[in-house]
């Protein structure tokens, strides 16, 4: 029998982040070399690039957050991390990967069709966002006059992965705070424990609404199986900027909470497979992809699967249809969904509920309002278009829907719903 292959994750904790002359990492302190990072971001699509810092507890609001990435590298120049964008488009997920846990690189500003996402680094909204708990390097930009928005989008994606790899490269020789061995399920021997798969639905709706797997969209394709360790190496990079609270940024793919939760319970369950699925825009293809995904799970001899989504109401169908098809194949299905129960929480919570499956986890009500207090400074955008251009530093009332990743069905958050009589 072949020995388990997998990934060794070398974890370097970040407890402090600042800008400086050259990039370095030392005992939790990450210094970002400003000139080097600006050079890495240089692109014909930008007239100017600015760098900011936001740390947990700061009185800072980041407005217009697009993607967020955890710094990660497998060696000089990334060593193959972020395949298809930075590294060659070849399978990853084995060997060693260095990550800077507690740090993230974010882009924040305007792109068309990007719904405004907000992160408060302190106050009542901070516990709702995974990126309020990280030390963030925030990239802002002014587009070049002749650049198209598509050019800007691509330049940001390419630039962000370069910066993420560059920052982690500073820790390649540092003593890790933790060394984590992550098994590759493809090579694990049967062990009698229930085999549980993760179904990761990825949005595929074209520019500004797409997710990249080895640098390409899954649009038009069928479900595919990869190892969860490929996520750790940045095989999935987000270019999807709709529905802020439901967003699954690259950061959450790299640190996939359902994968992590299954690893935590490996004494009781086996993390057996990760199935990536496109979210088609028409019903017939949603049904095809769902039925096909369930058959793949059957071939993989799964006992259960957890399905997640990205996007708004129509993506409920991508989860619900898969849950129903899984149950028909005799595979226990659990879905993670956000509720859209209206401002007062009295509406039906789901747009497309399952008809056969029943087991659902809630990430809270999208429509509930919350008040965010005045902050000292704002990054990303000076005003909030959603609120008729109210200043970003003002006290603002926003739906949970606007808080970055607050309801990500990848399951980072603790938000859920309780019933009360109105």
């Amino acid at each position: 029998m072949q020995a388990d292959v997998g990934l060794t994750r070398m974890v370097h904790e970040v407890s402090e982040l600042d800008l400086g002359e050259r990039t370095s990492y030392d005992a939790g302190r990450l210094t970002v070399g400003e000139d080097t990072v600006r050079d890495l971001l240089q692109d014909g699509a930008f007239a100017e690039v600015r760098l900011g810092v936001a740390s947990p507890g700061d009185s800072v609001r980041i407005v217009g957050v697009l993607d967020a990435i955890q710094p990660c590298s497998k060696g000089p120049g990334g060593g193959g991390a972020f395949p298809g964008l930075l590294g060659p488009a070849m399978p990853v997920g084995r060997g060693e990967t260095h990550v800077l846990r507690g740090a993230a690189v974010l882009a924040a500003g305007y792109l068309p069709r990007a719904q405004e996402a907000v992160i408060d680094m302190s106050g009542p909204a901070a516990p709702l966002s995974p990126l309020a708990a990280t030390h963030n390097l925030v990239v802002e930009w002014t587009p070049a006059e002749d650049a198209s928005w598509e050019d800007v989008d691509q330049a940001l994606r390419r630039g962000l992965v370069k910066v993420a790899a560059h920052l982690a490269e500073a820790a390649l020789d540092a003593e890790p705070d933790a060394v984590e061995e992550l098994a590759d399920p493809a090579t694990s021997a049967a062990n009698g424990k229930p085999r549980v798969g993760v179904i990761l639905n990825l949005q595929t709706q074209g520019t500004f609404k797409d997710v990249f797997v080895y640098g390409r969209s899954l649009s038009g394709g069928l479900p595919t199986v990869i190892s969860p360790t490929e996520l750790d190496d940045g095989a999935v990079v987000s270019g999807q900027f709709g529905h802020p609270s439901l967003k699954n940024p690259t950061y959450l793919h790299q640190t996939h909470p359902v994968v992590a939760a299954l690893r935590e319970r490996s004494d009781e369950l086996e993390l057996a497979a990760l199935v990536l699925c496109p979210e088609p825009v028409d019903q017939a293809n949603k049904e095809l992809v769902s039925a096909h995904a369930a058959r793949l799970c059957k071939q993989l001899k799964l006992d259960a699967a957890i399905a997640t989504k990205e996007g708004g109401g129509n993506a409920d169908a991508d989860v619900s249809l898969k849950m129903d098809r899984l149950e028909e194949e005799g595979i226990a299905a659990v879905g993670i969904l956000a509720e859209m129960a209206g401002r007062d929480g009295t509406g039906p919570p789901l747009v497309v509920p399952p008809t056969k499956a029943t087991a659902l986890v809630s990430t809270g009500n999208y429509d509930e309002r919350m008040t965010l207090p005045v902050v000292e400074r704002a990054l990303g955008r000076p005003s909030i278009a959603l609120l008729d251009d109210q200043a970003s530093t003002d006290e603002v009332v926003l739906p949970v829907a606007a808080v970055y990743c607050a309801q990500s069905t990848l399951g980072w958050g603790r938000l859920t719903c309780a019933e009360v009589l109105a």
Partner: protein
Amino acid sequence: MKIVHYVNQFFAGMGGEDSAGTGPELRDGATGPGRKLASLLGDEHEIIATAVCGDDYAASHPEFAAELVARAKERGAEMIVAGPSFTSGRYGMACARIAAAASEADLPALASMHPDNPGIGEAAGTTVVESGLTARQMKDSLERFAAAALKIASGEELTARDGRIGPVARTNRFAADNAAQRAVALVLTRLGGDRDATEIPLPDFDSVTPAAPIADAGEALFALVTEGGFVPFGNPDRLESARATKWVRHSLDGLDSADEGAFMSVHGGFSTVWANADPNRILPLDVAREMEREGAIGRLHGEYLGTTGNGTTVADARRFGMEWAADLRQQGIQAAILTAT
């Protein structure tokens, strides 16, 4: 107490759907089911007037409620009761709006409807008591309605034991574990054979009785409606790209096609590149006009109704639907083609 009772045109004896466009009015004394209600309320209370409005008018003019409540107050009303409206959607919505407007005006108020009545979604902030499914259960429904009204008149709170119903709110809170950990725990529960464990109870959607088919499309009046975020270029009404709380109407008079640069889509849930390059892809005006000229369609309505269906709450969507249906019917439209995204 001096009470004003609200009923729709049907229970006021003015007729059925043909009279649904009737505007609001106040009549002296009790009418229809109000007579039985008055006797059940006893001698200490008097139904001084009956407020009436057609269901279509009420659905398409939400301001009817505040207007009737103001007139009832002028007449000396000390309490307003509405219904029972059973499972009738527009009537239920009207009762909920009347009760809500009365509560807003600091008058004790009560509406009566079946728990499945879609109007219950509009009833937040006011009190609703359960009625039967249909008017066949009028007697029982009125008895419960009267008992609840007496309790409210005496200043007491109505509870579920009195038949109080109302929207159940799902409010955000933090769980001990994150959603991923809870999903894994639910897998173990589900593998253990428990099929009922869930954090989201599966909803029952209400059903709608389909309208009768049109006899002859060549004679019928058609409307084009859409939830594709379809707006005049520049979006003058600032229709929302997501979580819409309103709908818009714009004239199509004199237009043969929904041209690029004249209309656009502000929908935030899909790429609008294709819609903006040819807005007929969202609202099929070019072909509808062609078919109107050929006589395949009797006539096309002079305006379209539109909203954005993207993360829209079911309560808002249901309200838009009832308002559209009432509005179109008042204008004599016989069929609508809804392009959905």
